[in-house]
């Protein structure tokens, strides 16, 4: 049982004025976070766009007007808004709208799985690198430097080419490429918090180093990883499209946004929409992730969220 010093005489003290700034009844931190996110208009727009896109990906087979890979001779290079093809058709007469819908089935896993994997690996590496000074920390940080030295695109291409193209390779290469960036975010946050007075306070309260890591450091690290991950998920969609563009993504005729743009390159002069349409989808999804990430940054930090 806790050994609370039983006060012999409770001194009559002036009651401190009500809190400033006066706020409504205190909700749990989750409710406060949610309220802040909902109040953030741009974050909501981002979330809605993402939900629509994910919905499109899941229900693609049912809502797509055509089979994405079946070409229709008559519709070759049909311009947008032509009958039956809202966004037009490509060189093989395949409906661009359907291919974009099916393309989403590739784009989201290609972006989300690597970021999730890298978040876990990066957090562990970052915590070790940031929290434990000494040799362990040094080795980790130096090895991350190696990965930073190689330009992201090159590293990914090098991995993808040696392991052969295809979805698993793209996901693995992207995970390997992003992990160091997340690890660096975690390591810097951890290093900052490590020297904060409230960590000393925890030590004075008899906390073990591991408990400090779990109870004082993680509440700072997890939000920063979530925010960094979400914000950069958009960049990963763009990056993944790069694989498709270089022919390292899913093998043709699969509907991959990057590949669609690269296919459209041949007929750029006559049918620019073939390349333009998938690009717009990429930008929309990427922007949505950025805005959502920004909204989360405010929602997950008590200091920012109830400022609204």
């Amino acid at each position, binding site marked *: 049982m806790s050994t609370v010093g039983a006060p012999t005489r409770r001194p009559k003290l*002036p009651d*401190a*004025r009500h809190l*400033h*700034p*006066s706020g409504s009844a205190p909700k749990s931190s989750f409710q406060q976070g949610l309220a802040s996110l909902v109040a953030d208009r741009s974050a909501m727009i981002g979330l809605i766009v993402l939900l629509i896109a994910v919905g499109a990906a899941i229900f693609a087979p049912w809502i797509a007007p055509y089979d994405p890979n079946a070409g229709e001779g008559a519709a070759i290079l049909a311009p947008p808004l032509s009958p039956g093809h809202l966004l037009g058709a490509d060189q093989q007469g395949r409906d661009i709208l359907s291919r974009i819908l099916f393309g989403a089935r590739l784009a989201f896993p290609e972006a989300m799985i690597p970021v999730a994997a890298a978040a876990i690996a990066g957090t562990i590496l970052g915590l070790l690198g940031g929290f434990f000074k000494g040799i362990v920390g040094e080795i980790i940080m130096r090895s991350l430097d190696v990965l930073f030295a190689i330009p992201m695109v090159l590293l990914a291409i090098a991995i993808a080419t040696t392991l052969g193209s295809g979805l698993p390779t793209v996901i693995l290469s992207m995970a390997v490429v992003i992990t160091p960036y997340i690890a660096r975010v975690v390591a810097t946050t951890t290093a900052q918090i490590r020297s904060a007075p409230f960590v000393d306070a925890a030590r004075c309260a008899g906390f073990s180093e591991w408990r400090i890591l779990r109870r004082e450091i993680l509440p700072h690290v997890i939000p920063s990883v979530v925010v960094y991950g979400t914000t950069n998920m958009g960049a990963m969609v763009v990056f993944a499209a790069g694989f498709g563009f270089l022919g390292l993504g899913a093998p043709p005729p699969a509907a991959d946004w990057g590949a669609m743009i690269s296919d459209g390159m041949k007929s750029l002069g006559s049918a620019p929409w073939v390349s333009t349409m998938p690009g717009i989808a990429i930008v929309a999804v990427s922007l949505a992730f950025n805005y959502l990430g920004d909204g989360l940054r405010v929602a997950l930090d008590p200091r920012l969220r109830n*400022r*609204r």
Partner: protein
Amino acid sequence: MNARPDVPAPDEPAGVTTTGPLLEMSGLTVRFSSPAGEVHAVEDVSISIARNEAVGIVGESGSGKTVTCMSMMWLLPSPPARYVSGRINFDGEALPRTDERRIRRVRGAGIGMVFQNARLSFDPAYRLGSQIAEALRVHGAGRWGDVEGRVLETLRYCNIADPESVLRQFPHEVSGGVAQRVSIALALLIRPKLLIADEPTTALDLLSQLEVLSLLERVRREMSSSLVLVSHDLNVVRRIADRVIIMYAGRVVEEGPVEDIFAHPQHPYTQGLLASAAQRTERGRLYELPGQPPDLAALPPGCSFRPRCARAFARCNHMPPLYATAPGRHCRCFLLDPRGADD
């Protein structure tokens, strides 16, 4: 003791009336927009500074003292500051906020300013010497050659040992005390008619505070420029100022000659402040001003001090005017209403 060097008193340009107040600020109201709402930093403040007078502005954090002294030369960039109202008259001429050219000529020449954290008020990327030269050049001081003599002399006047090496150093390479004395020297170099010091000793260690205070007292005695000293420390103001203005929640609550104010303060807040500072004890406990400092984004109706005032009564839920209680003495409290403080 260093003999007073030839740091010339500000030469009076002909044609300007030397009578009348040096600076007249009337009806200054400044607000800031913040996430927590509109902050009423300064409300309808009017201050007049005579020539060769030292005025102390005392107030706790959030009282608006810094915003007030900075607004004497429209220093606060807006946004975020919003000048709702206020007129300034300096050295006999109006100083409209819109006349950027004239304001820039007054800033640093007519009025010199010294800040709380001296080391931070110098740009860390440049040596102290070049920043001093820059300030002089902006006010037409010509080549460094013919100014260097006066710079070194003024630095010595401010008790800077080895001024030559200090000029070559970067701000982070000198102590807080030295940096503050250099910034005072810089202000004096441009022969200001008014020197404003915003909490000059607060960020310094004790010994440096003594040095800077002694220097300010010397400047006060040996220079003819007026001085505005802003501080939360009553002892500092008592040593240097002739007149003192007490501010609370963005308004002037009391004003008068310094010994008068210290001998018999009239406003309850001033009384509380003096009692707290002098650590007077009543029945074994320190004198205590209850409650919290005001939240400038949610000021209560009526007198801002009412929530903490032991002598508040019904009438206090209106804002009392600044009553003139004696020549040169004002107090913003109904208790001092010449027509009697009828409850």
